[in-house]
């Protein structure tokens, strides 16, 4: 098992924004499992040590770990409250202590510390007084702003969230209770009426069409037509079972049970009911009509509302609601059955409406399923006006939504688009035919013109070339276009718009600029010459293409020797300075100086460069073989070498 110190070191030196869950878990397991508290104390000591590191990222991670354990262990809370001033110093930078670099992580540390501490105070101050005193100290003496922390805490405090949920649940329960009471009050009277109505309906159905089960009994004598339902002559017992007595039926069943026979009853759905309204049963039908009307128009919506409301109530919480829901469901299903039966009888909501208008008990009960009255045919339109519309009937034109309408063609203001199109097409074909005719015979003038004509790419100007008028707006409606104007009388573009369309658009193309390439001759310090000359570099001769190393490409060998081959630049570092040096040769001031003040900066630098080589920043650091595991930001400053310090001194203004 790893030591707490190792785990803390692993956690705090990872350098990530959030803690690594695996060692954190291991640490928690370790601290929880240790009854003596030794592991906890060791963890706390290690965390304090990590908090004291001169690296803000390490401190952030340590503080996060402290927060994790603080929220879990009483012992750890006691340890932390005992060392609060130290924690303040290290995490908030209190007591004039400064937080370590990097700066952005230090700011994060301060923010995180405020959030953590605010959460501790909010949650635990009742049990740990010192947190309150510490909060007062931070808030009023150190003037630390806890507003953001308070906001963050309010946002995601588990206790508060839990309480909020609790309140929400309480409210919901109270709401449900009230709803239930309201539904009960609503149902008290209505329920009875619905049941009475349904019972009456069922009795009527009893009269008109008996149950399948009772069909085999005494009722088939009264309603012989119902026997059609069980018409299947394949059974030898059919005669018996038409034979009038319950005892016979029992016998049949007994025989069937003994011989393991089965009865198949096929019911023809079309012929299951042939009850027709006659004068004899008109009263029954009227009663059914009245009740089913009530059911459909009054009771059904109410029952649906009850069902919806009861469905929202949590049945687990209230058995009463469950019972109610059951009864309402029963009611609903009974109602559905009754409605279905009514439909079978040919009594439904529509027919009832018709019935209400006409005198009751009239003799046209036979055609009550004819729902729609006949509409006289619309007068035939002339064949010319009913040309087929371009869009398929039924498909709506999204732009001109009236286009699919049937009546639109009768509108005198309407011009069918096809007519419009034809009008223009005629004109166009005439023009085209004329052109064809002209093109057929060669025109010498045109031939000549054609030779000198420029070749241009196809564009809108060519599309409308030579057209006197350009048709627009084939929709037939007046349209105002914001640029092309309105085509009120004739659906053609205005003169100016036409001219604009026929004008050639030419875009300005930027002329290509020549790229002046660098000389790229190798310099002494390993770089390539950065000079950009048109033809020849004053130092390295003609500019020729060179490869990566700066060697001339084969075939481009510089025939002309470099100008300064015999006298290479003194230091070679900067071509510009060396060119100056060659342009104006002068003796080094180091040799001639009599006092220190006579020394020239450049000469001293030259000496330093000669001794130590070029400045270190130009040297490429060798790549490290392995990437470090930690992603902590490096706070180490590059150490200045002796040569750098010397250069700094030389450059310092005297």
């Amino acid at each position, binding site marked *: 098992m790893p030591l707490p110190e190792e785990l803390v070191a692993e956690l705090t030196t990872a350098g990530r924004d959030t803690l690594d869950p695996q060692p954190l*878990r291991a640490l928690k397991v370790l601290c929880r*499992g240790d009854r003596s508290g030794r592991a906890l104390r060791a963890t706390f000591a290690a965390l304090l040590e990590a908090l004291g590191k001169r690296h803000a990222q390490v401190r952030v991670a340590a503080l996060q770990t402290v927060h994790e354990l603080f929220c879990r*262990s009483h*012992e750890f809370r006691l340890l932390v409250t005992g060392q609060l*001033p130290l924690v303040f110093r290290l995490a908030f930078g209190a007591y004039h202590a400064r937080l370590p670099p990097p700066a952005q992580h230090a700011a994060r540390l301060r923010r995180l510390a405020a959030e953590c501490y605010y959460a501790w105070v909010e949650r635990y101050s*009742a049990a740990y*007084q010192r947190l309150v*005193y510490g909060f*007062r100290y931070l808030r009023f003496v150190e003037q630390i702003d806890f507003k953001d922390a308070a906001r963050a805490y309010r946002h995601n405090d588990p206790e508060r969230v839990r309480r909020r949920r609790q309140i929400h649940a309480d409210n919901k329960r109270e709401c449900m209770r009230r709803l239930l009471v309201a539904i009960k009050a609503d149902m008290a009277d209505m329920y009875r009426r619905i049941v009475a109505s349904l019972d009456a309906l069922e009795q009527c159905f009893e009269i008109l069409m008996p149950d399948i089960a009772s069909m085999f009994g005494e009722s088939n004598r009264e309603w012989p037509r119902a026997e059609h339902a069980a018409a299947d002559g394949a059974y030898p017992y059919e005669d018996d079972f038409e034979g009038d007595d319950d005892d016979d039926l029992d016998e049949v069943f007994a025989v069937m049970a003994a011989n393991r026979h089965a009865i198949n009853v096929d019911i023809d759905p079309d012929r299951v009911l042939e009850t027709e309204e006659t004068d004899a049963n008109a009263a029954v039908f009227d009663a059914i009509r009245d009740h089913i009307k009530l059911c459909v128009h009054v009771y059904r919506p109410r029952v649906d509302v009850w069902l919806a409301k009861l469905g929202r109530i949590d049945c687990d919480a209230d058995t009463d609601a469950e019972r109610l829901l059951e009864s309402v469901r029963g009611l609903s299903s009974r109602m559905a059955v009754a409605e279905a039966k009514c439909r079978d009888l040919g009594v439904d909501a529509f027919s009832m409406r018709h019935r209400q208008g006409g005198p009751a008990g009239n003799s046209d009960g036979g055609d009550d399923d004819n729902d729609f009255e006949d509409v006289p045919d619309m007068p035939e339109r002339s064949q010319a006006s009913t040309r087929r519309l371009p869009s398929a009937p039924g498909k709506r034109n999204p732009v001109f939504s009236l286009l699919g309408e049937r009546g639109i063609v009768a509108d005198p203001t309407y011009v069918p688009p096809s007519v419009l199109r034809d009008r223009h097409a005629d004109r166009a074909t005439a023009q085209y035919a004329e052109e064809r005719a002209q093109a057929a015979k060669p025109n010498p003038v045109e031939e000549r013109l054609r030779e000198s004509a420029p070749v241009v790419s196809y564009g809108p100007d060519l599309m409308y070339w030579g057209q006197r008028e350009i048709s627009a707006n084939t929709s037939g409606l007046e349209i105002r276009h914001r640029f092309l104007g309105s085509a009120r009388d004739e659906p053609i573009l205005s003169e100016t718009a036409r001219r604009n369309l026929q004008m050639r658009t030419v875009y300005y193309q930027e002329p290509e600029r020549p790229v002046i390439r660098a000389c790229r001759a190798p310099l002494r310090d390993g770089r390539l010459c950065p000079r950009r000359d048109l033809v020849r570099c004053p130092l390295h001769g003609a500019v020729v293409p060179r490869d990566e190393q700066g060697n001339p490409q084969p075939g481009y060998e510089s025939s002309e020797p470099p100008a300064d081959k015999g006298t290479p630049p003194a230091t070679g570092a900067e071509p510009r300075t060396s060119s100056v040096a060659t342009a104006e040769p002068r003796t080094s001031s180091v040799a001639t100086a009599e006092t220190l003040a006579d020394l020239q900066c450049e000469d001293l630098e030259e000496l330093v460069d000669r001794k130590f080589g070029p400045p270190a920043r130009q040297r490429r650091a060798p790549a490290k073989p392995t990437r470090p595991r930690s992603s902590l930001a490096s706070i180490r400053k590059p150490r200045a070498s002796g040569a750098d310090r010397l250069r700094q001194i030389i450059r310092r203004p005297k």
Partner: protein
Amino acid sequence: MESAPAARIVRGRARGTTTAAATRRLLAARTYGALALAESKRLARAHTAAVHSLSIDAAQGRYLLSAGADTSIQLYDLDACGPAGPGARQIEAVRCVPPGAGHGRFISSVAWYPVDSGMFSTSSFDGTLRIWDASTVAEACQFDLECRIYCQAMSPTGAHALVAAVSESAYIRLGDLRTGAFAQSLLAHQSGGTAVAWSPVAPYVLATGGTDGSLRLWDIRQAGSHLHDFGGSTVAHAGGVAGLLFAADGQRLVSSGARADVRVWHIDSPQSPQFDLPSDTPSEDGGGGGRTSARYGAAGRCELALTTASGGAAGADILFCPNGDTTVSVIDIANGRRLAPLDGHFATTLCAAWRPGRAELYTGGADSNILVWCAPERAAPDEDLAELQADAWSESEPEAE
């Protein structure tokens, strides 16, 4: 510090295996060494800056006065019940002199009139010493010394109505409340005095400590010279005297220095202290002394507190001395031992007050808090607290085997 069960201590005494002194020491260590922050009550934050002085009335032990750098004076009724809620009961200030309404600058000390709780006196850096009517918290009388006053005190014997004030001037001024005028001036410390204390038994005996570190005993009837110079040829406290207190018997004098070193003197043997307790926390200042290097801020003084015997003579021998860091030392002055320090403040501790009868200690500090200390409460915490204090490991963190 050791903290043996009380029963074992008493048993040891009954068997005669421990001496009386050892028993007392053990019991004191048990009682006072285990003081902790009171979990059931706390004082509301009323001061906005450092609290430099605390005083609990001697008559009832019920009212706490506090004053400090924010120039306000707060009066707490320590028995007033705050609203019961989760956690600690908060004691609000019942009366207050708002900042700037009384003294114009830093209040260096506040003290109840030792005989009753009808009035109290304050001294300030604005150069005035004021007497206040406690019931209306209105100013009754004012003495103008025209220099910074560091400390003032009235005699606990009640034999006279003189208030002694030490200031940055060389004189101790004695003001008479009956006449409202100064009665006497004693040329005491050349560089000014920081602490003054009256003897609780002899009405005319006064002890003063100076910023030069000298500690002197006076009889105010002999204006020409002092009785003793404690410490003999050397100064009593290098770096200046910070706190001064007579023990209840009037025979011993407790003084603390600017470096939190504590000495206990017997007034009959002023040459050398009975006990000399150097500071247990090393001082940062290099020993230059003077007021600027003191640990106790601008006032350069601290207030000590002694436990008082409720019944018998024993018990008045535990000293609470603000250490100048965040701690308060607990010292048994009967044998000169330090018990565990009390660490609760977040900045320099400046003053302490013992509440007799209730065994409660109040301390004030530069973090503007007044903390309440008492023996750890043995009563089981209520359910809310127990729930708060319970460990909350989640189930996904199983116990290690």
